[in-house]
């Protein structure tokens, strides 16, 4: 009898990208022998029904583990002591250079990159949501292991059916403005300051009836958040720039439902789900051609290869103005998103699962 396969996540929480990916995989791969419960050191109260405390598991011969890695991990000892097949799923780690020296984020990301070679050597298989991540891993580690790209699921039907807060939808539509959206935690590598600068050009020179929504948690990088608030206060478009912080799932669905354009100028992303979610909603996406973005959203977006706020603002205007362009993008997005359907992702898992069972 084949052993069990556990996904292991250090901390399982709501509105967290790594947890979301692991939970989607758990649901998707039940029929393929992956345990429906995710092994964790900690699970938030709302998700305890989907989690099994790591210390309560009695390992059996033939069991295998897939450990999610996204920063410094307390799961190194598990990888060391575990006797069965081990895989790591590398979500990537933001390079510490993006954060001020001495800050908590700088320390954490540096610790993550320092630990990564040890985790990679302990694993038998390397998995990642993008080839970019696998290349980054290989560049950082001397050893080599079998590698598989397994993207997260982006289910267009499910995304469009997601319940949106009606009051929020109404509030976002009532002004009759162009809504420009970016979703992601407030962090220097996500370059929300540059999104603001582009919007400043668009709002003050092209279309004053517009609003920028920078949705995302700001608790991780207080220095950057404070700088963003300072920058916003100095911009002419300040009254049209909203920083609502972390929002509920229903409010987030409202933002996607009412957005006219998604603008992503991230300089470092290991995958970046929000632009794909936006594409699933039929929203035109402009993204920076940096890190994993050309691979993950590139075929479904307009990629900008140089940071020029005035020209990007004109590009935003062109996309909003020309319906045929948007239709071309939507058609490209429909084709690209077939890579991320539940069945496609499940198929992508099979070689890795077969290797874990050997």
């Amino acid at each position, binding site marked *: 009898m084949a052993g069990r396969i556990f996904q292991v996540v250090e901390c399982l929480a709501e509105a967290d990208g790594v947890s979301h990916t692991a939970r989607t995989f758990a649901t998707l791969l039940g029929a393929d022998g992956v345990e429906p419960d995710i092994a964790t050191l900690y699970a938030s109260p709302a998700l305890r029904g989907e989690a099994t405390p790591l210390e309560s598991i009695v390992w059996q011969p033939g069991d295998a583990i897939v450990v999610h890695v996204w920063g410094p991990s307390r799961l190194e000892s598990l990888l060391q002591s575990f006797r069965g097949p081990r895989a790591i799923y590398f979500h990537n780690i933001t390079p510490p*250079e*993006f954060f*001020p*020296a001495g800050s908590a984020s700088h320390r954490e990301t540096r610790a993550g990159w320092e630990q990564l070679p040890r985790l990679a050597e302990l694993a038998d298989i390397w998995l990642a949501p993008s080839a970019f991540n696998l290349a980054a891993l290989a560049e950082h580690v001397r050893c080599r292991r079998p590698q598989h790209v397994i993207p997260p699921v982006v289910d267009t039907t499910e995304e469009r059916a997601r319940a949106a807060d009606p009051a929020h939808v109404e509030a976002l539509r009532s002004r009759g403005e162009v809504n420009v959206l970016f979703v992601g935690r407030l962090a*220097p590598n996500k*370059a929300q*300051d*540059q999104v603001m*600068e582009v919007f*400043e*050009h668009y709002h*003050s*020179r*092209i279309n004053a009836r517009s609003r920028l929504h920078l949705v995302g948690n700001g608790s991780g990088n207080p*220095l*950057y958040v*404070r*700088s*963003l*608030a*300072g*920058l*916003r*206060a*100095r*911009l*002419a478009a*300040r*009254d049209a720039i909203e920083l609502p912080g972390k929002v509920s799932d229903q409010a987030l669905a409202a933002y996607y439902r009412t957005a006219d354009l998604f603008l992503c100028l991230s300089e470092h992303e290991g995958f970046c789900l929000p632009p794909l979610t936006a594409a699933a909603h039929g929203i035109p996406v402009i993204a920076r*051609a940096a890190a994993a973005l050309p691979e993950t959203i*590139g*075929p*479904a*977006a*307009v*990629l*900008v*290869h*140089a*940071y*020029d*706020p*005035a*020209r990007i603002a*004109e*590009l935003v*205007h*062109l996309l909003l103005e020309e319906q045929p*362009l948007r239709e*071309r*993008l939507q*058609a*490209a997005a429909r084709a690209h998103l077939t890579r991320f359907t539940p069945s496609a992702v499940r198929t992508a898992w099979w070689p890795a699962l077969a290797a874990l069972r050997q």
Partner: protein
Amino acid sequence: MAKGPSSPDEVFLSGPFEPDEVERLLGLIDERLRLRVSQAPPVASERRSGVRGEATAASEPAVLDPLATVTGDGLRALAAPLFNQDRGGPLGRSARRLLNLPLRLFGKPQAYFNDVLRTLVSAWSDLLRGLLDGQAVLEHELSEQRRMLDALAARVDELHERLDQLPASRPSSGEPA
């Protein structure tokens, strides 16, 4: 996927479009930018250095803002008490390297002092920058409050006017007409 040059040897955008389409988009973008030149100048680029504290784009202004440049990295570039070996021609560099030899030996206390000073100034610079950001936020909030107060005052005036225009109240049914 087609890519379009924004200048003869630079790619600005790419997308799921034909090369002709990308060329058209780039032409439109540049044409519209030219047309907007007469409008108010943008406010963006000089603020970047204060936001992320990283190396800024080549398009940054040549005139340096002291608050933006007095950072840890900027101060560390000052070589004192040693001579800066990276400046000048080959002869000058060699001379500075030679002059630095005794300074390295006997200038340790001064070097230590300078290092501590750099750290302190850098920390004060961060603090000042933070205070300026905070002040900008407060100024913005203050202007918001002022605007709200103005709107409320206008509304009160409007209501006063309406009250003045109201007819005198009718007598109740129990009173004689």
